[in-house]
């Protein structure tokens, strides 16, 4: 190793890496996003219309809130697969309590829309706390624990209503998913503000810095007096609360709760986070990178839909392009994942 480079640090040569040094890694997807937009403008004349782009943003807003949640948890060195099931169960349980008509699957309690929102976040809180306690206190593996919780909650979502879709929800409950502020859907505002908020907190708040420290070396964080357990449980809870919020927005947008709400979203959440530079081993990546990952996936989906590719082939194209994006980010200077 070079005489200026470390000797006892790691087996791999730690040469200066322009991309990590300048933090361009977080922005590497931006040219790719532009490329997709240029291709999109050729594919369809309607692609660049403001309505279409706003539509893309709105459809990505729930995904992007989940990506914030998953990024927090990944940076902290953990996993949460159950986020997508929280997207389903939190609004489903709230809807069940809100609907007074038992013939359409309701509970008959008929609680108000505001109470429904409170119930929704309470469900998020409980799911996050359970995940956090199991992973942190019982030291269960996060992957398999949250997988089990995912299956459990999916099953409960089906069980509550025997697989029915619930309609006829109070207006207050649908408001955030349907309203527009200054001509732009409210869910876009919310996702944008959350990205800004969490981006700043992760960078400029000591709890954010502590999360990076925990993900990078939990034992060292403990020795340095960082409350590792408390922060990790907190991260799981915040993650699940965000997932519940995403469920609320999704419910508002489609004005109903489906039994399979949120299904398969977790795959796109991971894809967006990882191509956005969030490391799966913890301690790595930034919110701005995760945001570019979400935008890229959202635009791709839209371009593929507009391009007229047979609907059954869209997923395959999507997967191939995600792989390509990973290869590009690797080749543009990202350190190999260990």
């Amino acid at each position: 190793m070079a005489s200026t480079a470390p000797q006892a640090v790691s087996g791999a040569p730690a040469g200066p890496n322009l991309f990590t040094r300048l933090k361009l890694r977080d922005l590497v997807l931006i040219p790719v996003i532009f490329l997709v937009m240029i291709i999109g403008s050729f594919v369809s004349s309607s692609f660049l219309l403001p309505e279409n782009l706003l539509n893309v943003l709105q459809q990505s807003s729930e995904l992007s809130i989940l990506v914030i949640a998953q990024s927090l948890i990944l940076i902290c060195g953990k996993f949460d697969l159950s986020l997508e099931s929280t997207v389903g169960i939190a609004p489903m349980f709230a809807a069940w309590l809100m609907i007074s008509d038992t013939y359409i699957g309701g509970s008959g309690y008929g609680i108000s829309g505001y109470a429904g929102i409170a119930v929704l976040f309470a469900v998020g809180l409980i799911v996050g706390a359970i995940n956090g306690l199991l992973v942190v206190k019982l030291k269960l593996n996060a992957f398999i624990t949250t997988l089990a919780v995912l299956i459990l909650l999916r099953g409960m979502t089906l069980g509550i209503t025997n697989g029915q879709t619930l309609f006829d929800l109070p207006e207050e409950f649908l408001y955030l998913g349907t309203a527009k502020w200054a001509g732009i859907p409210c869910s876009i505002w919310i996702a944008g503000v959350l990205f800004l908020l969490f981006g700043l907190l992760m960078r400029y708040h000591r709890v954010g810095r502590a999360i990076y420290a925990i993900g990078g070396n939990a034992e060292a964080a403990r020795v340095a007096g960082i409350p590792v357990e408390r922060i990790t449980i907190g991260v799981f809870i915040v993650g699940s609360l965000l997932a519940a919020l995403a469920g609320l927005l999704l419910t508002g947008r489609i004005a109903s709760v489906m039994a399979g709400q949120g299904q398969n979203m977790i795959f796109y959440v991971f894809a967006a986070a990882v191509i956005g530079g969030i490391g799966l081993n913890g301690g790595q990546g930034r919110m701005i990178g995760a945001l570019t990952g979400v935008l890229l996936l959202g635009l791709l989906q839209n371009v593929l839909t507009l391009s007229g590719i047979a609907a059954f082939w869209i997923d395959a194209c999507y997967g191939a392009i995600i792989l390509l994006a990973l290869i590009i980010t690797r080749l543009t200077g990202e350190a190999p994942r260990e």
Partner: protein
Amino acid sequence: MQSVRMTNQSTNLAAEAHGIVKRFGPIEVLHDVAISIPVGDARALVGRNGAGKSTLVGLLTGIYGANAGEIRLGGKPAPALGDRQAWRERVACVYQRWMVIPHLTVGENLFLNNQPRGALGLVDWRRLRDRSMAALKEWDLDVSPDIDAWRLTVEQRQIVEIARALLQGSRFIILDEPTAELERKEVNRLFDRIRGLQASGVTFLYISHHLEEIYEICRTVTVMRDGRVVADAELEEFPKDRLVAAMVGDAAMVKREGVTATRTEGPAGLALSGLRLADAFEAIDLRVAPGECVGLAGLAGSGKDSVAETIAGLLKPDSGTVSILGTKAPLGDVAAMRAAGVGFVARDRHVRGLFPLLPVGDNLTTTVMDRFGAAGFVSPARQAAMVDKQIASIGIVASSGDQPIRELSGGNQQKAMLGRALASDPKVLVLVAPTQGVDIASKEAVYDIIDQAKARGMAVLVVSDDLDELTICDRVEVIFRGRLTRSFPRGWKDHDMVAAIEGLY
């Protein structure tokens, strides 16, 4: 240097290299390096961090290719770079870090990629097990081949690695800081084994920062400095002061003792009273005056680390008190202990100190993040101001506070760990093995930092079994099986100290 001998006795050399040039990018890190190690030799390879030792080892084990020069192993040209199996059969390296696969059994680790095979080329598990048992028995290693390798102690793990190397056919073994985590008794056992193997014709290249060990176990030494070999000698004719002089160049080192304490009146900086923790230590009474440096010496498992961790707030004692400048400190809470005035550097920075992915600045200010703004927000400007000041005052070599700490040398990483402990302006500094795995120059820098801390009136407790680290202390307390047994003022003899640490008195 030895080219004549080399050509004549080529076949009796376990390893030889000459004219080696190695570049990483534009930087040439090895300049015309030559080394030749006769079969059965025990050769020490010493040099400060960055001298090129690791690069040379990388070349001798086929991890890198040289840009110029020739390497021969066992009298034959080195295998092609990609032919790992051929390299493994000729040379093996036991690193400081774990190179066994934790979730495979000991037996599988012994025969990694070399499993005995039976019909159809399938792994013959029974034979693998039998041969592992035989190997373990030969090595006096009282472990079952069926347990997972992560259950091994450091000592057992090293032996498994050496045994694996020999089973793979290698007769040339490189040991890279093998004793860093061993206690004295284990080191002796390791050395006995090395001597035994040497007698049977196995050749060793031994890398260590502990010069005493080198004199104990090695016959010859190669000294590297700035990418060159600067000395090749028999250790018998090469006293320690000359060895150190060769390592550091013109600036010869004087063994230092540190500044003597400026004892002040008043309450002790750190006072432990009747401290007891079940299965760790009991009846610990210890006073460290402000400006005094006290050593706490003991074997691994003697309780010395637990005492340190109790003062740091990582462990909560069953009874007893810790007082700082006469005030009883809250026990069992790291943040509260720090607020009461304790700065702590834990053993093994890789495991318990560094945040490798984070910049130097975050690593230095981990414990004082609340100082850079209101409501927990961190103002980058205010953080950077403190970081720059610390980098300058501690003498950390880094391109800036934004450089990831994993890119720094071991010595600079360790200085950063001290910087973190000092960041909270402590009144008491507790350092566990503060110079472990750092080169001589960085050791000196660490001692300078300790001297400065003493001058500023801090009470310093150095927890260690390294005689160099204990030499700088004003007084050394020995802990054996959880109890303080002896106290040495300055000027003790190495022999007495080792005897006391081992409990032989």
